């Protein structure tokens, strides 16, 4: 990313502990530039989804004290699941770990933060909760209080962007899995987010649907953070990769360097994508 511009996302020393006491994220720091497309990879249970849920304030972890302590004290100060930022906490010093376009992710800023950051969840059935496709895609724009014309324009455009124009009247149970995922993406795109956070966007898709999804993402101007086990997708789509394991960032750098690092990949339950192993020519990263 170029360092001249404001990052769209800035995460600093973010830590989060599940209500059960288990540590999910520990001292996670990174930034994402305005048009950057970043892959987030790591084994199951690494904390990828938990991290994504922090990006729009669905979860709110704490920021570690500025001093670098021993692991024990670091672990002590990780908040529990209920840890929210109280006003005095913020007044005491800037301890908010996540910033979106320079705006701290605190309860007062959530409406704006959630407009800027769109999250695509893993299970389309969780995200498609309205009786018809049209209603579902309109859900976000309606919550943004747009006039009816603007809502309809956005619904039409978002459905066109995912290749499902004319699906407004369908009900979700009539759709194939791939169509459901695309409608979910349309629902997120209709809010015109500046940062797309995608949780396993290609999981359970057949090759054609997967290819279609990659094309949609390529045409999307927003910055993207893609959490995925589909390393070929990451290799093809992302210029930069973050490796997360046991709640910590293990590596962060250009995707071709990181994905080609056999030792690093094996250590974190990953493997070098075949396209890199066989030195296939990768199509150039889009952004």
């Amino acid at each position, binding site marked *: 990313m170029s360092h001249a511009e404001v990052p769209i996302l800035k995460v600093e020393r973010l830590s989060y502990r599940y209500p059960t006491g288990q540590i999910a994220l520990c001292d996670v720091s990174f930034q994402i530039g305005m048009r950057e497309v970043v892959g987030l990879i790591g084994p199951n249970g690494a904390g990828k989804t938990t991290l994504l849920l922090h990006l729009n304030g*669905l979860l709110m972890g704490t920021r570690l004290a500025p001093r670098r302590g021993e692991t024990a004290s670091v672990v002590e100060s990780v908040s529990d699941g209920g840890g929210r930022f109280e006003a005095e906490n913020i007044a005491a010093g800037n301890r908010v770990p996540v910033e979106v376009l320079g705006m701290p992710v605190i309860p007062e800023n959530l409406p704006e933060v959630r407009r800027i950051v769109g999250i695509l969840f893993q299970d389309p059935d*969780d*995200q498609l909760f309205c*009786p018809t496709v049209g209603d579902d895609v309109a*859900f*976000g724009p309606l*919550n943004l209080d747009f006039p009816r014309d603007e809502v309809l324009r956005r619904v039409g455009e978002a459905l066109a962007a995912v290749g499902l124009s004319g699906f407004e009247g369908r009900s*979700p149970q009539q759709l194939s899995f791939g169509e459901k995922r695309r409608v979910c993406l349309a629902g997120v795109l209709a809010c015109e987010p500046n940062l797309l956070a995608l949780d396993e966007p290609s999981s359970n898709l057949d090759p054609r649907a997967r290819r279609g999804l990659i094309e949609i993402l390529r045409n999307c101007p927003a910055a993207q953070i893609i959490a995925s086990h589909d390393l070929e997708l990451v290799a093809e789509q992302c210029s930069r990769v973050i490796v997360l394991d046991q709640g910590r960032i293990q590596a962060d750098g250009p995707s071709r360097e990181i994905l080609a690092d056999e030792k690093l990949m094996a250590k974190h339950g990953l493997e070098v994508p075949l396209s890199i192993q066989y030195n296939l020519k990768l199509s150039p990263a889009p952004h």
Partner: protein
Amino acid sequence: MPGDFLDRYSRGGTICHRMSPRLKIILTVAVIVTCAFLPLSNWPLYGCLASLVFVALSLAEIPIAYLTRRLLLFLPLVLMTAIAVPLSRGFAGGWQTAGTVVIRAVVAFLAALWLVSTTPFDRLLAGLCRLGLPRLFAALLAFVYRYIHVLFDELARMRTAQRARTFKRPPGWRDWKGAVQLVGTLMIRALVRAERIHGAMCSRGWTGKMHSLD
């Protein structure tokens, strides 16, 4: 369970399907209320109501076989209630009352079936909203309709997985135990899913108020 078990014929093109949902709701409620308050002595009117409903159903081209299957699911409940009448009130006038209960219930049931079989669920909800149903209540109904399919699919998958590891039919009580475990698991899964849905709603700017395009 097929995805359209509730409103399989709701997307047809007959005159009934083209009627305004509001009008259909009002007609259906009118038939049900009339049916419920009609005194026993006016029994020929029951016949009129019943034939009205049958005409409406045939105009909507809903197959008899489908209606019969639905009715067979519904009848046991009504019959149980009806049988209780002569048993508690004596057999003299009891049978007559029981008969009325059954006829009223069947006519009301068929009328409601006509409504949901000629109106897609989302349009039905929109119609109800225009007739004054609170948005939040409509949203709740929409959620029930949406997720009953998902939950039934989930249940079916769990049943299959359970059967795949059941090598011979277990004795009766263990069969029941398995079913109870399934229901328990399903409830926990539903709860966790509800939390994820809530997260997805908040992510798209939901703040507790239901908006609608209509």
